[in-house]
């Protein structure tokens, strides 16, 4: 690789770094993304121009198809569909790495030359990682899109099987390193990698997918880095490392916010508990639940001084973000101060709620992180919980028995009044009953978030 090209790649990498740095504030974030994409463009052009490319037509085909598909995805996806979108894209990234490694494996075979050992090894690894990322991400996508059941699919001997499979893979890699250029076995390896991806994601509950995805994301980053080692290209290595780091950090953040170990997320078959979710009547302890209708709720909100909206996964499902904005716009002129409390793992991916509310034109300076807002709850008149459940479950603070115990939550129960909008007393993703619903300063407002909110808006307009 000529020094000049190396420089170009360096510049591209710097673009990525700068881009990520600019992501540190919403104001500069967009330009950051632009910078990063320029970097990518640069890298691509550099490769096309100086990469001793023989046949362009094939490439052009690939590029055109890829770009088209990507563009369509990006345009059509709903904001609520972000998790699946990321999963899907991520899958393709991983797939690409695997394929590249495959190509690198075939080429010297065709040429009849034997590769240096470390090259062989890295090739194996990037096929492995790439493959797992590919199939794993697709499964994750499926689960989030409800193509595959969102439940944690468990079956006897699952772990043993996976363990065996894993062992097998290692064996294969070693074997292929010892004596390379055996196409068949290489193909087998690829197959096993795919299988491994599927089997290791299947047993994970739907709502844990984000963790899986960002983990896979970091894998695909590492896969890219691997490829970088194979074709000895620092551009790939740097970018790969960046992605790897970001993936790991996000995974870690999510686990912390759920107060669960990564191991528990991956092997805990957490979502499985959803199956035995309590009936419509919730834990069905015969404690009475105070309900409110639209009118009452409307009056409460209309005359409140300070309202904190707590959105959760339900808001996303119900696509209710715009109605929330509308409601806020109605009651703010009436003297209510409206803030939004965003739990780090509210919804189904980190920052999910922020994106939705941003889509609904909620200015981002009204969104509060958990730590900022928690002290404010006891000073607030109404906490309006919309389709959130686990992230506001006081059991996490008090009840040592609860699986959520220790998970940091939003202390909505400290508010003077709590209005919880959801369709039933059903538990949330964690599948545990929520004592919040039975507090006497809590009133339940049953119904699908969007419908309920629209009723509310109508009522408020009446007043």
């Amino acid at each position, binding site marked *: 690789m000529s020094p000049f090209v190396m420089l170009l790649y360096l510049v591209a990498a710097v673009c990525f770094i700068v881009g990520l740095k600019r992501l540190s504030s919403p104001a500069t974030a967009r330009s950051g993304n632009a910078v990063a994409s320029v970097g990518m463009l640069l890298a691509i052009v550099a490769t096309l121009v100086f990469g001793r490319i023989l046949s362009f037509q094939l490439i052009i085909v690939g590029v055109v198809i890829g*770009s088209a*598909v990507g563009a369509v995805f990006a345009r059509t996806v709903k904001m609520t569909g972000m998790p699946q979108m990321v999963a899907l894209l991520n899958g393709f990234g991983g797939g690409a790495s695997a394929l590249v490694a495959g190509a*690198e494996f075939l080429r010297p075979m065709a040429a009849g030359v034997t590769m240096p050992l470390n090259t062989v090894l890295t090739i194996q690894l990037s096929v492995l990682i790439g493959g797992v990322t590919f199939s794993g991400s697709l499964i994750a996508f499926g689960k989030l899109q409800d193509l595959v059941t969102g439940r944690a699919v468990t079956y006897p001997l699952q772990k043993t099987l996976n363990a065996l499979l894993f062992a097998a893979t290692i064996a294969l890699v070693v074997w292929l390193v010892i004596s390379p250029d055996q196409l068949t076995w290489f193909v087998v390896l690829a197959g096993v990698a795919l299988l491994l991806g599927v089997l290791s994601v299947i047993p994970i509950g739907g709502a844990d997918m984000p963790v899986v995805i960002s983990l896979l994301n970091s894998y695909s980053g590492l896969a890219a880095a691997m490829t970088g080692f194979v074709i000895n290209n620092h551009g790939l290595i740097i970018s790969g*490392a960046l992605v790897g780091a970001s993936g790991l950090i996000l995974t870690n953040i999510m686990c912390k916010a759920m107060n669960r170990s990564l191991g528990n997320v991956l092997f805990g078959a957490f979502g499985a508990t959803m199956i035995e979710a309590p009936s419509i009547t919730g834990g069905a302890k015969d404690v009475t639940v105070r309900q409110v209708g639209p009118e009452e709720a409307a009056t409460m909100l209309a005359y409140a001084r300070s309202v904190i909206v707590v959105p959760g996964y339900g808001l996303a499902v119900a696509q209710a973000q715009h109605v929330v904005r509308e409601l806020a716009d109605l009651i703010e002129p009436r003297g209510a101060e409206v803030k939004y409390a965003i739990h780090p793992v509210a919804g189904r991916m980190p920052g999910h709620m922020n994106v939705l509310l941003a889509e609904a034109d909620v200015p981002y300076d009204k969104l509060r992180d958990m730590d900022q807002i928690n002290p404010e709850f006891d000073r607030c008149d109404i906490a309006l919980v919309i389709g959130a459940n686990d992230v506001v479950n006081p059991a996490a603070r008090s009840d040592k028995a609860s699986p959520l115990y220790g998970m940091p939550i939003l202390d909505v129960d400290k508010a003077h009044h709590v209005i919880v909008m959801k369709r039933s007393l059903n538990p949330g993703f964690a599948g545990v009953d929520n004592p919040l619903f039975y507090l006497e300063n809590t009133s339940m407002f049953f119904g699908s978030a969007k419908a309920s909110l629209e009723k509310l808006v109508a009522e408020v307009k009446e007043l």
Partner: protein
Amino acid sequence: VILLVIFVLAMFVGFEVITKVPPTLHTPLMSGSNAISGITIIGALLAAGRGSGDAASILGVIAVAFAMINVIGGFMVTDRMLRMFKRRPEERE
């Protein structure tokens, strides 16, 4: 090994930079860094461009397509999200 050095350093940069990203932007961060991981496009292009029509280059082309999906999709969708964030109160509507 020199490449390993680069890798380690890049990791450090990554950690330092990413930890500065506020929770608000974690979804864009995810999709954005995702797009960056599409950098394998480089490898894909090289693989695809080298031979003419042999197995390797076929794999390469598919790789190119996949990578492009990742890249274009990732950056565009990130931009879509961030465009929404750009709005501040006064600019509403």
